[in-house]
């Protein structure tokens, strides 16, 4: 831990603030979700998973957008920092895509009667998840680390551009097989309290993502310091 102090006290301070903010924010989010907002009349308590679901998918798209931008910047001017940033966000993005898929399934079982349906949004989300899992695996497959970073950047770009195209094609495809059991979750007239809670959750989850990414980058840094120390110790 002595190393991290040398690495910058100000940064640790930011992390502490982010961590505390996330913790408090999450507790408040739980209160808002389970106590403040009313129970939805038709769907019942299971509807509450939607706050987490929406905030997660928001985080996933935000993450992959950042991966996309960092990848472009990396190819223009390679640097280890940009690659680390892209990878950290991709990991967080995959985590939140996973949460999205799981929370969707939890909601889907009682409402749709099935954990999984080939609904366009579900299908797109699953493909999104696969693309970025491959993105994360890619560096390990390529021998030369520099080349691995470059290839990851290529997939970070193609993958992101691909997502709307996948979504569009899946949607057009689904129009041929309309799914009768799909009940739309969000009616147009949600009570305002629900909207506030949704927005609030999105904000808190974004802070959580920021916090996690910073922790991830910190671990990377420690690992590199360790490698350097090993090298000099030889």
């Amino acid at each position, binding site marked *: 831990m002595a190393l991290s102090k040398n690495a910058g006290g100000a940064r640790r301070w930011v992390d502490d603030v982010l961590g505390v903010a996330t913790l408090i924010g999450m507790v408040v989010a739980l209160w808002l979700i389970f106590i403040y907002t009313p129970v939805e009349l038709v769907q019942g308590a299971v509807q509450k998973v939607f706050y987490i679901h929406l905030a997660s998918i928001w985080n996933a798209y935000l993450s992959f957008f950042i991966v996309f931008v960092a990848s472009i910047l990396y*190819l223009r001017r390679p640097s280890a920092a940009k690659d680390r940033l892209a990878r950290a966000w991709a990991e967080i993005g995959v985590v939140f895509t996973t949460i999205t898929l799981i929370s969707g399934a939890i909601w889907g079982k009682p409402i749709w009667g099935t954990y999984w349906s080939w609904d366009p949004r579900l299908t797109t989300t699953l*493909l999104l998840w*696969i*693309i970025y899992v*491959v993105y994360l*695996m*890619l560096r390990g*497959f*390529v*021998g*030369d680390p520099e*080349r691995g970073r*470059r*290839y990851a*950047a*290529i*997939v970070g*770009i*193609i*993958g992101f*551009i*691909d997502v709307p*195209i*996948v979504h*569009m*094609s*899946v949607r*057009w*495809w689904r*129009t*041929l097989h309309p799914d009768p059991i799909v009940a739309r979750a969000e009616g147009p007239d949600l009570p305002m309290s629900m909207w506030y809670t949704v927005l609030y959750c999105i904000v808190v989850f974004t802070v959580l993502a920021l916090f996690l990414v910073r922790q991830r980058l910190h671990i990377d840094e420690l690992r590199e310091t360790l490698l350097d120390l090993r090298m000099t110790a030889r």
Partner: protein
Amino acid sequence: MKLTLQQVLAIVQKDLTVEMRARDLLVLMLTFAVLSLVIFYLALDLWGPVVQRVGPGLLWLTITFAAMLGMGRTFVREYERGTLAGLLLAPIDRGALFIGKLVANLLFLFTMEAVTLPMFALLFGLPVLRPSVLLITALGTLGLAILGTIFSAMAAHSRAREALLPLLLLPTTVPIIIGAVQATSNAISGAADGPPWLGLLIAFDVIFLTLAYLLFEYAIEG
């Protein structure tokens, strides 16, 4: 500009000559494609209206997997024998190198399809030799070849080689496959309504072509 065209042609011609002498790639793709068709038919016990429904999907599965097999080999071949470095030593714009490789790959795939489509028509009894289906096949194959060319260049440089290509190609190429299957389906059944798949296929091809053209340099260089 004139030099670039000459370079692209040189690459295409070289790839064709090498393949004409080695023949391994086309033989591999063709055998695989025909085998797949037979296995699909037997495994799924296809007859009657089911063929009409799943036929186009099976056709495109066959084409996709055969294409993946073939395109993976083209770069691995250059990489293993060290000729890729020879190509990279030439003062050729990396985009032009991409176009050269893409055209060569396309010609291989079209040759494979020239046998696979009639075989499919024969075995499955679906009229896929219509001009409309041929056009769809060309557009779908172009999309596959675009992504296949850039991803197989990347796969050749990695430890997993042929295993990496499907991981990269299959998820990203979903739009092309959906588009091609649906368009083929409509063309066979004569359905006129539904989404404009042909236009969508063209749009996907253009988007992927632009991306791959711009990014190929980073996929191929050392």
